């Protein structure tokens, strides 16, 4: 059996966040500090991650265990961003998941702004995006183009 080389720990970082709005700022600081990514890689990861995290907080809360683990890593030369959480039964997570890869933007007159662009942006910022709803854990995984 072929053994894999050990993963370089310096090219991986994890943060655990509460499912509250203030966590968006904490995630942005986390993304800004990812030294193993180039500035443009960090920018893509930060923009897409903001959208995913906001959607999890809005559509999947209350989360069981109330925590969202977010991991950034370079794997196979490509930056990845992984979200691990456990949505409560009966939340809107399933609907949220079905919204991938993104619905058409529309103008919301009540809020006086265009909406529905977050997932579209994620699709365009990433190379691949997958959502897995599991019995033990929900996962959202984004892979980005690598620039190194």
């Amino acid at each position, binding site marked *: 059996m072929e053994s894999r080389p050990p993963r370089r720990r310096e090219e991986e970082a994890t943060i655990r966040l509460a499912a509250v709005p203030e966590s968006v700022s904490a995630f*942005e600081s986390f993304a800004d500090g990812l030294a193993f990514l180039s500035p443009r890689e960090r920018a893509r990861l930060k*923009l897409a991650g903001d*959208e995913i995290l906001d959607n999890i907080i809005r559509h999947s809360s209350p989360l069981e265990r109330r925590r969202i683990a977010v991991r950034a890593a370079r794997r196979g030369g490509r930056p990845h961003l992984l979200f691990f959480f456990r949505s409560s039964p009966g939340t809107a997570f399933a609907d949220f998941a079905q919204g991938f890869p993104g619905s058409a933007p529309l*103008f919301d007159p009540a809020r*006086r*702004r*265009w909406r529905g*662009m977050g997932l579209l*942006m994620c699709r365009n910022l990433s190379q691949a995006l997958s959502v897995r709803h599991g019995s033990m854990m929900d996962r959202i995984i984004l892979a980005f183009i690598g620039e190194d």
Partner: protein
Amino acid sequence: MTQLEISVHTEHHRLVLDVIGPINSYTFTDFQEKIYKAIAQSDTAVVMEHVTALSSAGIGVLMTAIEDAEASGHGFAIVNPSEIARLAMESTGFGDRFPIVQSLKQI
């Protein structure tokens, strides 16, 4: 930077909004309020050189601002956006809709 700072001043009969910090789903309301108010009054320029994040909520406000400016007959420009702000606009797939200039002198 976790707070959004917006200062407004007048320059050559135009309202100029200097935006510093992240425009995300939890900070965009102040941005929305100030930009819509400015466009209703006069030509408006938004300096985005020091924007550290631009979420879909902020993009949605910018798109509405463009339409409001067209409807009111006022000029609107986005000045020298940061790399991440520019990337966010491009990621919508219709980046050419955003009226970007490199400096206020170009307006």
